[in-house]
């Protein structure tokens, strides 16, 4: 089903409610390989939102862009680039990590998955740039949340709740984003051969200084090369990038050699981050969100021979390709205050292991109660994220 208007979305949700059907919300489908395979297809209809298309309003000097949820992200990115602006959290098109072709990601999918790129380490995540939305909840009601100005605390911050909700609360029909000026200049630098603890330390020192790096990643050995590669990005006006580079050199130049990367090399690295093509194709991929300082020891404990990993956000985000026992990994990650999302795996593993790290009991109950307020009948409960007791 591919509704062409918000009203049609409303009608279809109401119809699903009346006929006791379930709906799988889909944007471009670039992330549909995430989550448990849907075995109950006979009771699920796919609601594809790409028919809601087009930029509704974009005023660059207000830093606000309103767009229908099914619009391709690439199209919005082009409109932003024309005005030399960006979505600062730097969403990456990750379709290739799941064996799909890039270019299909929609704005609605971007918001519903809430996944940010490298600049998140300083610029905040997707949720920090969603100002408002229109949506149809599982109650068959159209509602709005947030507003269309950059500063707003009126009522509950529903845009935060909808961001990263993976289609479990409501069908987004329109979103309003906060956009920012794109940097005039970007330069990428690398350090070679650092071990993980040293890389974390080095990145932490840079991030804690006035250097103001806007990306801080570490590709483990055996990923982009035999040696590890620690990557930093400086952005801004030309004069400030020059000043920041000087500061960077003063901070770590004495101990480590700083290699300036060419634009092509930088593009290649960002491509590898988006596609994870530097991780072995035959192992499940885990996305670990952890306190940055825990990344090196955690990876050392969990990665076996032949496993590969890289980390972003100074260590706070780890990508691990490994056959590690899911239970064990989740226990280790939880013990250091993090969580592990199963990103890519074969159908059998995805059927057995819940995609999202299960929540502690009290919190799980609370989350479930919130979800049921938006979707009491379970219209959007396709069991994609179940992997256990709940059908959501």
């Amino acid at each position, binding site marked *: 089903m591919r509704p062409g208007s918000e009203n049609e979305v409303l009608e279809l949700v109401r*119809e699903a*409610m009346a006929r*006791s059907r379930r709906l799988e919300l889909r944007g471009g489908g670039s992330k549909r390989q995430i989550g448990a395979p849907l075995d109950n297809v006979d009771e699920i209809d796919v609601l594809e939102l790409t028919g809601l298309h087009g930029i509704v309003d974009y*005023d660059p*000097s*207000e830093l*606000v862009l309103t767009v229908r949820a099914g619009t391709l992200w690439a199209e919005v990115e082009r409109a932003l680039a024309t005005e*030399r602006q960006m979505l600062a959290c730097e969403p990456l098109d990750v379709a290739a990590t799941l064996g799909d072709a890039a270019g299909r990601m929609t704005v609605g999918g971007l918001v519903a998955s*809430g996944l940010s790129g490298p600049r998140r380490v300083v610029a*905040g995540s997707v949720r920090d740039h969603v100002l408002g939305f229109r949506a149809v909840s599982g*109650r*068959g009601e159209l*509602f*709005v*949340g947030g*507003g269309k*100005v*950059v*500063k707003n*605390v*009126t*009522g*509950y911050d*529903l845009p*935060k*709740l909808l961001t*990263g*909700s993976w289609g*479990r*609360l409501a069908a987004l029909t329109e979103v309003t984003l906060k956009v920012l000026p794109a940097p005039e200049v970007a330069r990428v630098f690398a350090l070679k051969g650092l071990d993980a603890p040293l890389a974390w330390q080095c990145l932490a020192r840079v*991030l*804690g200084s*006035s250097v*103001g790096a806007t990306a801080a990643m570490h590709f483990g050995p055996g990923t982009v090369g035999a040696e590890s590669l620690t990557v930093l990005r400086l952005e801004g*006006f030309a*004069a*400030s990038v020059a*000043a*920041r580079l000087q500061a960077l050199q003063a901070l770590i130049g004495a101990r480590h050699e700083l290699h300036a990367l060419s634009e092509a090399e930088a593009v290649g690295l960002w491509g590898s981050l988006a596609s994870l093509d530097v991780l072995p194709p035959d192992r499940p991929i885990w996305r670990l*969100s952890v306190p*940055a*300082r825990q990344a090196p020891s955690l990876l050392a404990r969990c990665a076996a021979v032949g496993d590969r990993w890289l980390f972003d956000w100074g260590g706070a985000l780890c990508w691990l390709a490994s056959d590690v026992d899911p239970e064990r990994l989740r226990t280790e990650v939880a013990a250091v*205050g*993090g*969580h592990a999302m199963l990103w890519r795996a074969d159908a059998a593993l995805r059927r057995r292991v819940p995609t999202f*790290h*299960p*929540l502690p009991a009290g919190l*799980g109950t*609370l*989350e479930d109660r*919130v979800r*049921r*307020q*938006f979707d*009491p*009948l379970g219209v959007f*409960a396709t*069991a994609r994220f179940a992997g256990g007791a709940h*059908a959501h």
Partner: protein
Amino acid sequence: MSVAMPAVDESVLARRAQIVAALRTLVSVDGVIDEVVRMRPYESDALTAYRQLPLVVVLPETTLQVAAVLRWCHANGVRVVPRGAGTSLSGGALPLGDAVLLVLSKFSRILEIDAEDRLAIVQSGVANLAISAAAEPHGLYYAPDPSSQIACSIGGNVAENSGGVHCLKYGLTTHNVLGVRLVTMEGEIVDLGGRAFDSSGLDLLGIVVGSEGLLGVVTEVTVRLLPKPEAVRALLIGFPTVDDAARCVAEVIAAGIIPAGMEMMDRPAIHAAEAFVQAGYPLDAEALLIVEVDGPPAECDELVARIEQLARRNAAQSCRSSTSEAERLRFWAGRKAAFPAVSRIAPDYYCMDGTIPRRRLPEVLQRIRELSQRHGLGVANVFHAGDGNLHPLILYDANQPGQLERAEEFGNDILRLCVEVGGVLTGEHGVGIEKRDLMPEMFSADDLAHQQRVKCAFDPQQLLNPGKVFPVLHRCAELGRVHVHGGAVRFPELPRF
């Protein structure tokens, strides 16, 4: 009082002695205050036109005590109002006559500073500025800086999603909080977020920040710390018209510059401030801009030069850039003293807080002037120009009969105007009781119901801070009813595998 609060539950009042006695068993002996004279200081927050003595004041010291108090109150049907430092400008911490006022002032410890992962874990009663002070030795600070930062608590900041003059570049509280420890009305202790950047599952942290004490009581907060900028410089720019100043602001942003702060004052505010602190403000200007940039010194110099150019292109009459820290602080002195300065030209003032799309600024200011004439009350405007957050200060005299009511009506008209031009009712001060009844200007009944149902998930009995934020207190059972159009419901959610 023009705002109706929920009807007092007489049966609770009748049980007061018993409630006080029960609370005494749950917290330390001196943690319960029930004498009227000692409860007086708590009868209002910074929206002082509204006052109400609480049923009793309780000051727990640990998260477990908070949980015990809430669990007991929940089991016994007693309402609770949380309170931090009581600086809310929207009446969020206004007590209810039949509710326990739960005060977090004993939660005053900084638990940890992690300089390398750049975060601090603090108890919720810690003052905003105290976090930056504790982080200072590490070259770090906590960015959101409400003007009340010496006094207001981080728990209150979380509840109100507070901003400050630097939130244009560094964001509101919500952008700088990594996690909270929350106690629900049912007494359940949950950790939302934490030291990692994001959490598994729905973003409940995101919804708790800015929920004005309606979803739970925050006892601990994990905040992000930032490296202190190497250099900070400010510009002081005078314009012959508000239009010129507004155009300059838009062009600065269109030029790709996001200053750390960008503040505007109109003529009445400039004059009041100058008379009060002699900051050297240009008295011939119709609008004054303070623009602050921070970062490496070379970047600051570059940005100052670019902004000066844009100012001149937009007819600036005067433009000075700070060359020393003392000069920068002098530029700010008038703006920072704007509120007390205004209280010298009128016995009372009422501070509004709407946000508008910036492009509508000249028109909105013109209409505020018209409203000012219509209501017969003066107004001085200071605002966070970069993000369109207006703070009109309505001047009145509470001792003149009818003036407070007129000031409130004037304020409501300003907020309706903000919504009419595409803006919102509040940019940083919160809805509380003050803007509660205006919510339908911005949200439909369905919009509000979707917000209130979140409340129902956290607090089904609606015992926590009732009467705030939402104009009508629907029962959760009523809000929960599902309307199925043309069919019968076959599954009230059966698990499917």
